[in-house]
């Protein structure tokens, strides 16, 4: 009689085990979101290394495997003394691992726990070193996407200011090249909420280095004041705070701090990426200037400083300013966007960019502006939602709300409709309807705040242009619309209602 024992799902890793014939495991250092990190000895070089293993349960999931590989490749390419050095990456008996230099010290999260808040000098060193590391990463088109105290390691003795900061965990980093292969799924929030940028909090799929700089500013704020600038009792509250509220100036929280730091934080924590520092170098140098003197170790940011406004990782954030075109990364479709203007024959100031930003939110399928005659003036999003559909939606909704009261006389109304598999939000601007259609996965609170903000922007543009009629008038020479792109052409006359169907729209 024989008995069979099931093989363990993942071979155990234990002190004394040898990995790929090169490393001998010594002791567990800690656990992260994706796996455990062990201290090990590099047998050939006879030096200590840190070996990170992906969890057995995650190993076979393509998404996690790709992220693990991405961490190794991203960190290895950067080659900065302020980014942890990757020595090796491989698979041993079914165990995926990354071997990194062994760091002696503690992460900033623990250091903050012990100290509450930090001195200006220590904070300046943290910001300076982090900017150096990020500058090199950004120059390669790599955004970290999870800058937080736990991922900033202080090597050496942090208590006497003699530390060297190294950035850890490029596990959620994204490069322009890899994005097309392993893009974040719609609705998936990656990063640590308290340190997220507004575009991360909205679930944007297109993040660049300016998102990292926002997160670094949140870390700096935490260091100087002992608490993060954005707080909330729940995750939605926190995300809404990041998206919509302005933090208290640091000099008010800590009266001894230079007033010039308030200006630095105002810019570093701007909601609009275009209003932030445009490079890590610029952020680091501005921080030094805000302190009133240069440090003894001036910033050495010789890596080419990426201009995020032209970097390939930049997408929808650009369209909010004076730019005349934007590339939608997921479809590689070039989208024509009108230059802002107040002339009477021009599409509303900022209208295409407002629609682009709404359509870019995670879980959103399309956004459009509909005129009082229920014609779609401009739209952006999935080709499965034709322009005329938005006008039809607005018409049905208008019919529905007429029973409530005279909605023609009112301004600034918001309607949110939740179906089993879809979300529809409408906001009126002087009789025009701003319409957003999303999946059931769209974050409702974030979407309604985004829609209100978009409506406020358009409202301001109509005031500039002397009314919605002028602001939203369509230029007759607009190019023909591209499927899935912003269009400025009113739709062709719609066929009779009974001939129309949009059953092809998919929401799951």
């Amino acid at each position, binding site marked *: 009689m024989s008995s069979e024992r099931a093989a363990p799902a993942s071979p155990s890793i234990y002190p004394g085990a040898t990995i790929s014939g090169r490393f001998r495991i010594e002791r567990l250092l800690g656990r992260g979101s994706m796996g455990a990190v062990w201290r090990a000895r590099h047998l050939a070089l006879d030096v200590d290394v840190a070996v990170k293993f992906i969890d057995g349960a995650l190993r076979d999931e393509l998404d996690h495997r790709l992220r693990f590989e991405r961490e190794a490749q991203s960190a290895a390419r950067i080659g900065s003394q302020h980014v942890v050095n990757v020595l090796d990456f491989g698979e041993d008996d079914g165990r995926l691992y990354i071997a990194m230099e062994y760091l002696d010290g503690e992460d900033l999260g623990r250091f903050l726990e012990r100290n509450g808040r930090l001195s200006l000098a220590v904070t300046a060193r943290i910001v300076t070193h982090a900017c150096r590391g990020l500058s090199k990463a950004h120059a390669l088109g790599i955004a970290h996407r999870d800058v937080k105290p736990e991922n900033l390691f202080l090597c050496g003795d942090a208590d006497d200011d003699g530390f060297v900061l190294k950035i850890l965990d490029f596990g959620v980093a994204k490069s322009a090249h890899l994005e097309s292969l392993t893009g974040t799924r719609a609705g998936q929030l990656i990063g640590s909420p308290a340190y997220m940028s507004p575009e991360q909090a909205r679930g944007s799929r297109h993040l660049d280095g300016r998102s990292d700089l926002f997160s670094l500013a949140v870390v700096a704020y935490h260091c100087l004041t002992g608490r993060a600038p954005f707080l909330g009792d729940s995750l939605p509250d926190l995300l809404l705070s990041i998206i919509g509220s302005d933090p208290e100036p640091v000099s008010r929280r800590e009266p001894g701090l230079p007033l010039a730091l308030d200006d630095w934080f105002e810019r570093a924590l701007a909601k609009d990426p275009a209003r932030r520092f445009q490079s890590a170098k610029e952020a680091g140098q501005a921080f030094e200037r805000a302190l009133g003197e240069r440090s003894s170790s001036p910033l050495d940011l010789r890596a080419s400083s990426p201009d995020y406004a032209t970097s390939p990782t930049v997408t929808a954030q650009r369209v909010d300013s004076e730019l005349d075109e934007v590339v939608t990364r997921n479809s590689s479709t070039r989208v024509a966007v009108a230059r802002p203007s107040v002339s009477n024959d021009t599409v509303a100031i900022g209208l295409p960019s407002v629609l682009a930003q709404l359509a870019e939110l995670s879980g959103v399928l399309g956004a459009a502006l509909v005129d009082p005659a229920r014609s779609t003036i401009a739209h952006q999003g999935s080709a499965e939602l034709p322009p005329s559909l938005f006008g039809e939606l607005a018409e*049905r909704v208008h019919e529905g*709300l007429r029973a409530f009261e005279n909605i023609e006389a009112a301004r600034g109304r918001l309607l949110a409709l939740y*179906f089993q598999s879809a979300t529809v939000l409408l906001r009126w601007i002087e009789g025009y309807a701003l319409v957003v259609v999303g999946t059931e996965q769209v974050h409702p609170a974030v979407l309604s705040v985004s829609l209100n903000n978009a409506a406020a922007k358009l409202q301001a543009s109509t005031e500039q242009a002397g009314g919605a009629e002028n602001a939203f008038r369509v230029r007759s020479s607009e190019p023909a619309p591209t499927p899935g792109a912003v269009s400025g052409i009113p739709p062709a006359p719609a066929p009779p209602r009974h001939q129309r169907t949009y059953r092809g729209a998919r929401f799951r």
Partner: protein
Amino acid sequence: MDTRATLESLKSVRGVARSSQDGEALASAGELDADTLCAVAAVSADALLQVGELLAAGSLERWYFVSEDSTYYVSERGRERLVAIGEPVRNAESTAKALHGAR
């Protein structure tokens, strides 16, 4: 469904009513004209259901509507619907969600 308990559990809401699908007020609590509001909600829901049909989005679950003076919340519950009226707010989502989750 205890409309009084629901009313007390929702901040920024001043009245709650239970309605049949046809718009008949079944119970209410707080400051609202339940008969009118339930009837109007029923008429409105018919048109709003067409939005779902256009999108093939499944049944309507809940909706809210913010006007200059008030916010109207409606939670569709099969043969009944729950209707509430409250203050105009910038972000009505949390109240709408709480009403929909009320038992």
